[in-house]
């Protein structure tokens, strides 16, 4: 899929993050080829979400560059920034739906912002996106406050997909969902990824989600990336955090299930 000439979806070079004296990231390098699903794991406070926010350009790293599809996300040229931002979408942990807008208007919002499509076209596109995340047209009238946790995630996913992103950034996609719902949501993302072929980067604590989705795993510990590779390669690395995270009984079950 990725010819040598096409730039990777994400390319991080020599990234440092400091808050005053505290160093969060120390010289991080990471590349995510197009079409890959990368899971980012690490202990609490290891700076996973910070790294994610730096990838989408919500935070500026203290040092180093983040390039998405070959362009810097914080390029000084506003038109380049806009162009890059139109190629990826982010799914926030709490959904971040606009609480004053109905489900329909939430999904239609980014499409209307383009000022290209007429209302009839937007309606078709919104219904198509809702159908993709297995919601019915009648759900469009609901307000975000009336939705269950699982539905909020689905609507947020539909809104993220509305812009036809080539890169989807997920922050804890299954946090706050019960195991059954979270498994369904993982299946949904996997199906959509197969169909639409977007690249995925996600932060997660949940092993089932990680094993269910990620084709590659990057482990963030001790302020740097201590391991990056396929699940099997990462498990083989000898590091206290990895031993703790992957080698418990629960982890063994999840990994077994993932292989099956």
């Amino acid at each position: 899929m990725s010819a040598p000439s096409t730039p990777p979806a994400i390319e991080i070079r020599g990234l440092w993050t400091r808050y005053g004296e505290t160093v969060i990231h120390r010289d991080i390098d990471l590349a995510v080829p197009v079409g890959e699903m990368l899971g980012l794991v690490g202990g609490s406070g290891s700076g996973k979400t910070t790294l994610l926010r730096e990838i989408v350009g919500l935070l500026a790293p203290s040092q180093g560059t983040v390039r998405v599809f070959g362009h810097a996300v914080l390029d000084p040229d506003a038109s380049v920034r806009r162009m890059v931002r139109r190629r990826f979408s982010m799914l926030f942990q709490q959904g971040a739906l606009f609480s004053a807008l109905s489900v329909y208007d939430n999904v239609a919002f980014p499409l209307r912002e383009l000022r290209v499509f007429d209302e009839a076209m937007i309606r078709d596109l919104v219904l198509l996106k809702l159908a993709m995340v297995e919601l019915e047209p009648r759900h469009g009238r609901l307000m975000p406050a009336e939705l269950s946790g699982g539905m909020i995630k689905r609507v947020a996913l539909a809104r993220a997909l509305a812009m036809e992103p080539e890169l989807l950034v997920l922050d804890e996609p299954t946090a706050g969902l019960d195991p059954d719902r979270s498994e369904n949501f993982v299946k949904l993302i996997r199906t959509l990824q197969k169909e639409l072929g977007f690249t995925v980067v996600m932060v997660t604590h949940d092993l089932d989600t990680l094993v269910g989705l990620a084709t590659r795993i990057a482990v963030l510990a001790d302020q740097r990336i201590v391991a990056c590779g396929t699940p099997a390669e990462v498990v083989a690395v000898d590091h206290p955090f990895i031993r703790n995270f992957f080698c418990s009984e629960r982890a063994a079950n999840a990994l077994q299930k993932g292989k099956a």
Partner: protein
Amino acid sequence: MADAALEIDDREAAARARLSGDWTLVGLTRTDGVCADFRAREARLRDLTQRGAHWDLRAIDRLDSVGAVLLWRTWGRAWPAALEVSEAHRRVLEHAAQLPEPVTGRAPREPFPVTLTLGRLGLRALSNLTGLIALIGQMVLDFAWLCAHPRDIPWREFSANLYKSGAQALPVTALVGFLIGVVLSYLTSLQLKAFGADVFIVNLLGISIVRELGPVLVAVLVAGRSGSAMTAQIGVMRVTEEIDALATMGISRTLRLVLPKVAALAIALPLLVIWCSSAGILGGMVAANLQMDLAYGFFIDTLPRAVPVANLWIGLGKGFVFGILIALVACHFGLKVRPNTESLSAKTTTSVVTSITVVILVDAVFAILTRNVGMPG
């Protein structure tokens, strides 16, 4: 990435449409002046459909749902007779094909829109009134409970509210009071000079500020300052379910949230009224001294004789009632906020507007009831 391209072969009787490139959101909307461009392409595709064209989609690199919906719509929501497309892209098109037909016709209009609007407005006002009365009733019950269980008195919340809405409002109320006093003194002194009635400035300023302007000014300022803050605070606590959390801990929201606010404003407002009235009289005194050479000593000496002490009690009483009303209205609307941002802003606005209106209404009632009290005889 390539743009979406369309080649039309017109040599034969039935046109051949050959699509290539990226038929995606980015590919279709990349060029500048996209809107006209997009519409023009849509029109051309519709035209081709009408001519019964042969569609060749095999050269398309990428097709996303925007491209698929565009094609499906221009095909008139039906598969064209002659279509060549790869298996993967046919699946994308099939998703678009499963879309429900658009519903035609608008929702039926309601009859008598004016009557309905007025009726809804009246009902809403009525429900707000009953809500306020219920809140007052709850206040009384809570107060009785606290008299029986003095250990439950929320002292910390009370003192925090007293500080926020009382102490922190001192500078702004003093400034506004002083300036209003200056303005009033300057304007009236011009008139009084014409009649040679300079000394009556003391009566005029004293009565109007102590009895009327002081309480109303403070009430309007506090409604804008603390009333809005109270509505927003309780409203956000509704949005973030903190109020529900309180309820599950068995803590009464009226006792812990509403009562301290009402009590704090009931105490703080009369004190602010005295403070603001003093600043106003000081401003008036300074202006009168500058404009009419009225001695400070004379002003201070005349004030108690010109303004009977009953006026001060009326001003304090107004402050007490206004404080209770502002806090009650603010808390009532705060508790009515629904969990979304729009409702929060709407209710905060309504809260401030309602409390200022209520204050002025009640002030009129005060003026009528106390019309025989406190006038220098």
